[in-house]
């Protein structure tokens, strides 16, 4: 368990990388951090991702309007809202997957992870994506064996020690609650698994590279109820080790597995609070209308 919680960059083999424990100026978190004790010494509940007045455009149409949001470390944050409200767009901004779509741009506002503006030109997108992993709506295992799927990210980083990789595969699959189901067929194709298993394989693949944040874009949208339960349980177990941001349009799912919930509507953040509060005593009438099922 301990080993798993070593910060990702501590495991990075790049020699020039200063180790994580190296002394660093203990700058305080910006005062806007609203919840949690704040400060650098308390990882749980500290602001990890700070979204500051983010505006985002698809070509000429604005998808996100001045989003202000602080995502806390080691918590599950859910984005909810009706289709087209910008929740997936925001999620994909967090590891800059939107860069792949032509004509998109961030116009004003910042996203800071650990105080670093991820849209800064000095930022290496590759490095960012190593630390901010993603699980997609449609499970997308590579047409390779299960083993290769898990080790793919590590091999990219140049890790090829067999024993090392074996250990990571087992750890990740266990972490994704898939080990018992697939341990006898690690070399068969990932495409041969069932839908729910495929999605958990993708989660295992994501955690194998030890990211700090895992983004999940409606991970259960294409799954049947039983597989959904398994994935939700998995999310519960992962919250101890990772900061998780999950997009869902299933309100029960948000209520069941998230600590904090953000409600979006028409590209704007309407309300952001503890999940319990959102679902029991929302402060905004729009939120209330949505969570009580009157629209969306």
């Amino acid at each position, binding site marked *: 368990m301990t080993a798993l919680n070593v910060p990702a960059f501590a495991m990075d083999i790049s020699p020039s990388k200063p180790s994580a424990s190296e002394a660093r100026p203990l700058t305080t978190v910006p005062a806007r951090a609203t919840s949690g004790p704040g400060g650098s010494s308390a990882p749980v509940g500290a602001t990890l991702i700070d979204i500051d007045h983010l505006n985002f455009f698809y070509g000429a149409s604005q998808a996100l309007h001045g989003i202000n949001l602080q995502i806390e470390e080691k918590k599950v944050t859910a984005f909810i809202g009706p289709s087209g409200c910008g929740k997936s767009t925001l999620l994909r901004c967090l*590891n800059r*997957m939107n860069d*792949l779509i*032509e004509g998109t741009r961030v116009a004003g506002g910042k996203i800071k992870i650990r105080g670093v503006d991820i849209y800064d030109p000095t930022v290496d997108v*590759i*490095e960012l*994506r*190593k*630390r901010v*992993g*993603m699980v*997609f709506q*449609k499970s*997308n*295992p*590579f*047409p390779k064996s299960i083993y290769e799927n898990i080790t*793919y*990210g590590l091999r*990219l*980083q140049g890790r090829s020690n067999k024993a090392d990789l074996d250990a990571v595969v087992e750890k990740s699959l266990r972490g994704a609650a898939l080990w018992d189901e697939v341990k006898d067929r690690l070399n068969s194709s990932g*495409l041969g698994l069932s839908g729910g298993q495929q999605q958990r394989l*993708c989660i295992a*693949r*994501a955690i194998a*590279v030890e990211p700090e944040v895992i983004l999940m874009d409606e991970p259960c949208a294409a799954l049947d109820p039983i597989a959904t339960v398994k994935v939700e349980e998995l999310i519960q177990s992962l919250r101890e080790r990772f900061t998780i941001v999950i997009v869902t349009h299933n309100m029960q799912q948000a209520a069941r597995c998230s600590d904090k919930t953000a409600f979006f509507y028409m590209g704007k953040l309407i309300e952001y609070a503890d999940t319990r509060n959102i679902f029991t005593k929302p402060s905004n009438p729009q939120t209330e209308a949505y969570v009580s099922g009157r629209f969306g």
Partner: protein
Amino acid sequence: MNAPDRHVFQAQANNARRWEAAAVWVFRCATYSVLVCGALVFGKIVFQGSQTVFTTKAPFINTAFFTESPETLHVFEFEGKKMELGDRDFRALKAANPAAKDLRSETFVYSAGGIFPAIAGTVLLVIGSMTIALTLGVSAAIYLSEYATQGRLVTAIRISILNLAGVPSIVFGLFGVGLFVIFFDWNVSLLAGWFTLALMVLPVVITASEESLKSVPQGFREGSLALGATKWQTIRTNVLPYAMPGILTSSILGIARVAGETAPIMFTAAYAMRDKLPWEDLTHYSDFVFQGVMALPYHIYVVSSKIPQNEYTERVQYGTAFVFLMIVALIATTSILLRNHLRNRYRW
């Protein structure tokens, strides 16, 4: 009016129905007559050509036809018998036999011997030009499918590809003469032929490769990038391997086109007749690419237009056409079957 055993949806013969039946037959005939025409051409050449290529005695294949160079055929009467001999045998007979010294013969060029140099030349041309075309074409396709963002440059590239695809092959031949043969001073050579053919087939390869790359699901790329792979790593490990079968299959069709074209190599690479094989008598290894070769399609052109049609020349004409058609048909069939197979296999 309604008979008791008839219901509302009773099928009735009416004009619309009759017209439809007639139309179906008209269209069906159109379709099958195309196939019949194709089959007639194919059948005639296979039927006549196989008489040259196959023999009734073991080993059932006319090996001389595949292993020898073309020769002049001599037809003459000797000692009361009508004889047909290739040039070398004819000379040998004259030398050995004093009675045959003043023998007069009817001669038909290229009608004896075989077509080995032409086969070898075609193989060399195809291998070289496809290597060039695949390297250029696949790279270009990767750029267009994976890297390119909309812009003036990419528009220019796409327009160029579309237009290059329509340029007649003889114009490529002229271009090859202008650029490779004269400007680069490569003369009539394998190298000039390679590049001319490669550039001609480039649009086919690019289009086919891009299609294959595009058919790899976006999820593979996103999944890989989200794990911190660089773009090139993603392409190398997670896109190209899955697109490769498609690229190769479609490129085989390009090979068929390269092998089948005559016009571009007429003035850039092909000789009507060359005694030496491409790998014989090379003083320097670079001579290899700076020599012209014989090629099957050009040989067919030569034997079908420069020598008369008769029972003696017919054999080499049909034989060459048969061998060539078989090679091209084999390539094309492989490509078509392989593609259908892959279509069923790769469904993500």
